[in-house]
């Protein structure tokens, strides 16, 4: 495995680290994986998750670029980037693909995003035909009838009562500290538009992976909710899906993180066309 620093993009403002497998271990046909910020966390990712993912992917023959969007982490703010943060994120993600295409000859990419990172992953996957796979971790959710039903029954959960009792035992200062941290909101695209996008991506042959954690409990609370949110598309067996109700939003417990990484890596390996693995040429 080899890791190198890269600077690229508009005004050469973007900084990233490219992890490449040993030449003997390169997986033929493997797309290059591109990762960027999770919220305000720099390109290392929360709990170093992107570094671990990149290195484990390298062991399976994939190259991965993890980079900071302009003004975040180690990347400089752009002088002429415009005020629209979302637009900049899209441009810069595409700039990462252009860079990898120009410098490394890569033409197929997989994007992965967690939480707010999902926004640019979704938009670029829809726009750019070079993207052959996209993983959305704690991405867009819509409350369903099943969600509301379970939400009403939440006070019957023994876990909720045991938390209440645990908190009562804490010193007052610790009990109150950080309560405000839990307030967080995001704007999601309209459900109908998202369904159209997913439909088009599947027609295009893009491999999709959706992962939800228990940290999305305020809008996502049962295994089948994902398929019910997009029921007209009948996504069962058409996408890779996992729900980890025991994991928090940032997968802060190492075992939860390891499970997530295993899932993502298995999906990435599965997204490599079989003809590439066997060395056969595609037909038709």
């Amino acid at each position, binding site marked *: 495995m080899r890791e190198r620093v890269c600077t690229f993009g508009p005004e050469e403002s973007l900084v990233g680290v490219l992890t490449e497998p040993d030449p003997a271990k390169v997986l033929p046909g493997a797309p290059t994986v591109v990762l960027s910020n999770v919220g305000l966390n720099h390109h290392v990712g*929360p709990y170093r998750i992107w570094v671990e993912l990149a290195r484990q992917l390298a062991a399976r023959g994939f190259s991965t670029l993890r980079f900071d969007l302009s003004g975040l982490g180690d990347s400089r703010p752009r002088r002429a980037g415009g005020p629209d943060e979302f637009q900049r994120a899209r441009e810069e993600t595409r700039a990462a693909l252009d860079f990898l295409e120009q410098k490394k000859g890569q033409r197929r990419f997989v994007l992965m995003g967690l939480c707010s990172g999902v926004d640019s992953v979704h938009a670029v996957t829809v726009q750019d035909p070079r993207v052959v796979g996209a993983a959305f971790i704690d991405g867009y959710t819509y409350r369903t009838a099943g969600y509301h039903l379970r939400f009403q029954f939440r006070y019957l959960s023994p876990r909720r009562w045991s938390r209440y009792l645990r908190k009562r035992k804490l010193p007052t200062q610790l009990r109150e500290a950080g309560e405000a941290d839990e307030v967080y909101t995001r704007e999601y695209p309209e459900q109908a538009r998202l369904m159209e996008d997913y439909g088009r991506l599947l027609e295009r042959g893009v491999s999709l992976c959706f992962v939800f954690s228990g940290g999305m409990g305020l809008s996502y609370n049962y295994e089948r909710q994902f398929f019910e949110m997009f029921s007209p598309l009948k996504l069962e067996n058409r996408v890779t899906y996992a729900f980890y109700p025991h994991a928090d939003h*940032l997968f802060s417990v190492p075992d939860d993180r390891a499970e997530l990484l295993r899932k993502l890596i298995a999906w990435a390996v599965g997204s490599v066309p079989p003809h590439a693995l066997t060395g056969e040429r595609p037909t038709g």
Partner: protein
Amino acid sequence: MTPCFFGSSERQLFGMHHPAQGAERATGVVLCYPAAQEYMLTHWAFRKLAGMLAREGFHVFRFDYYGTGDSAGAVHEGRVAEWLKDIRHAVNELQDLTGVQRVSLVGMRLGAALAVRAAVEGLSTAGLVLWEPLVEGAAYLKELELLQTRRAARTLFPQPVVPLEVRQELLGFAFPRALHEDVLALDLTALPAWPSTRTHLVTATPKPEYERLQRHLEATGLPFQHHLVAEDTGASTIRESALLSNRVLQTITSLLKEAA
């Protein structure tokens, strides 16, 4: 900002050089991050501090210790002795890159204790800034374990059945027994005087451990000052809101300017 990997190819470390802007000062600054969870929370503050110092004419270098950030190695491979070597490599790297003869160290929490240990072990420094330092390893670990308890109490997620000390992790990161022992052995109040021209202690609140450190340093005769810097937000512990505070960054910048 110029990113780089430095050190040997098997053990490469990620560094970021912030070149001096305007008239260059003869003294450079190496920033020593805290570890693990605190590294995640403070990365932005360190980038901001590096930029402020560079604008004042300092060449600044920040870097990830082995097994942290973008540097080589896994989290569980982190050891204090290795991180001390990393600080020395980072100082050499800054000197090689820029030609600065003397280097000050700014360290936060565990990074401050590492900076002091590096100076005690012979690293020549123009000055030390100890920002909310770890003074005694035992108290530091107790504080982190308390945070872990709070996290476990507030969460709805079932906690792993195996206890933390068996799982050898803390606040979301691997924390092997060897590193635990290393940190436990750190005690700045038990160290001999270090050959530094000036040591600054920068903290948001007074604490008994800071007073003990102050008394110890006064007894050794080292030039030493304690600066209490009230945070903008009134936060009293290491939290994100506190780490976005500008006042403490301005104080550190001013102290290094005065000393250079």
